């Protein structure tokens, strides 16, 4: 999946000479945590986070002349240079960047101009879609040997029963490289025939796992 599919295109930005105070208001009013700073050509020249603003703000315990700092230009506290993404980057790459660089927002840049932002929250939403838990379904986990052709073998059981699969995830099985766990979300309230077929075909089910006793 490409970044352009999930990025937010209505980006709230500031110019470098806008005040810290203004940035603070934008963060509060729009319930956002990051503001890209752009020049007159809409090139990204910096980014500020809610944490940058908080660090720059005077302590709530004082009410002295420090208040003036909020009138300073945002360019004095923005982070620069900025790590950016391209609309055709993969969401997996963005996840990697978020994890490695410990950040939570990337401006998306195309032809040197800002075209969108992607945040940690957008990424988590996409993850929810990938798990299929946003649509009605039942959950089945199958432990399988890690070998070519196993996925279509297992998946054919669902197809033969005319049951739609809304998502498939492949997990490692503990630290054993010889096995994988296949997690299916299937669009049925009655997974019993499928469970029976899977068992008859010799697959080991991690769920349903028949605690406390065999039920089928």
């Amino acid at each position, binding site marked *: 999946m490409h970044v352009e599919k999930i990025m937010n295109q209505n980006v709230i930005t500031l110019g470098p000479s806008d005040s810290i105070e203004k940035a603070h208001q934008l963060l509060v009013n729009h319930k956002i945590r990051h503001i890209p700073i752009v020049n007159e050509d809409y090139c990204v020249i910096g980014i500020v986070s809610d944490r940058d603003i908080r660090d720059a703000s005077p302590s709530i315990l004082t009410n002295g002349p420090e208040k003036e700092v909020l009138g300073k230009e945002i360019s004095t506290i923005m982070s620069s240079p900025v790590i950016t993404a391209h609309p055709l980057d993969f969401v997996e790459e963005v996840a990697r960047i978020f994890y490695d660089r410990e950040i939570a927002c990337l401006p998306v840049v195309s032809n040197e101009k800002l075209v969108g932002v992607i945040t940690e929250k957008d990424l988590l939403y996409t993850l929810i879609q990938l798990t299929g*838990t946003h*649509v009605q379904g*039942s*959950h089945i986990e199958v432990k399988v040997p890690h070998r070519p052709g196993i996925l279509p073998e297992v998946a054919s059981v669902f197809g033969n029963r005319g049951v739609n699969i809304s998502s498939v995830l492949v997990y490692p099985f503990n630290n054993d490289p010889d096995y994988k766990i296949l997690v299916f979300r299937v669009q*049925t309230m*009655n997974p*019993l025939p499928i469970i029976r077929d899977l068992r008859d075909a010799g697959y080991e089910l991690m769920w349903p796992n028949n605690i*406390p*006793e065999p039920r089928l």
Partner: protein
Amino acid sequence: MNKNIKFIFDHSLLNYRFNDEHPFNQKRVILTKELLKESGQLTEDQIIPPRVASDDEIALIHDLAYIRAVKSANRMAQEDLIKFGIGTEDTPVFSNMHEAAAQIVGATLSAVEAVMIDGAQGAVNFAGGLHHGFKQKASGFCIYNDAAIAIKYIRKKFDLKVLYVDTDAHHGDGVQWAFYDDPKVCTFSIHETGRYLFPGTGNVNERGIKEGHGFSFNLPIDAFTQDESYISIYENALREIADFFQPDVIITQNGADSHFYDPLTHLSGSMAIYEKIPEVALEISKLYCDGKWIALGGGGYDIWRVVPRAWAQVWNVMKDEHPLHGDLPATWTLKWQKEAPVTLPLTWHDPVEEIPVIPRKIEIEEKNNGTLMNLLKYTNKKSGSTRIGM
């Protein structure tokens, strides 16, 4: 004591049958009715036949395009039906689908009218409670959502505040979404967590939107939850929610699939929960609703050992304020044992030796208690201290 309560029944309610292999089997209603008759709990004058629901009434919840599709399902192409959720493994097409589904809606409306118009104190329609029906989609064995239609009907015609209590093991999603923004309808669903089980929703943080925020309650409980934990959190939650909402009428969806025998779910309740569930519903109806209580059926896939006893206890509690104990009438067991593929129970309770031992019991209870606290955190200042002893 002769309470005026009504049992909606007619053989036409059994026409709601997808196919012979399908787990949703309305024979349950006959088994329940006969069990009650043999127990001397149900008399002919308490049974009333259902009326028919009009298209306009069904359209209180469902789109006209969807109703048209249900009506002509036999003549429509598979690919045109699928967007309505019809023709799937869960809700395959059967003949006279519309008539059968509309009859169930009519039966639930008859139960509503018995209480709201004819002055009955309670009424049951065990053929109803099809809580997965959506505005424009069938799902999870449900075509028309009779429970949601009944609530909308009560709202429109009588303008009363409705508390909907759903104890089916599956989340009551169709009813929840139908009233998600409505502060006059409070929905409470206790169900097995959606991590594994259909439909997957019903998380504790689904609390409603807009004006309806705070009026949807979900108590997802862990797989293998047993009686003690189930009963304690159900009682606590329902009393607190009713106190917060102050309902005028209560509708219960009495799905009977949280039992350890149920083949489709993973909860481990015994018959004890099916005694307590109606007892607390009755208590709430007396405390806030001047006794007005409409009970519906729902899921329940062990139609021989679990559902008849569970539903009969709803009626017993509605009638006598307490469930029956001891032996089941031998005549009932004798009659149906010939047909049943399993050994029928002999008592209202489950014998202790049949109740499974769950190794993770303590952890499960702890987890469920945590979910209960989370559920009630906005409802009442009292919560956590006085009411919820744990």
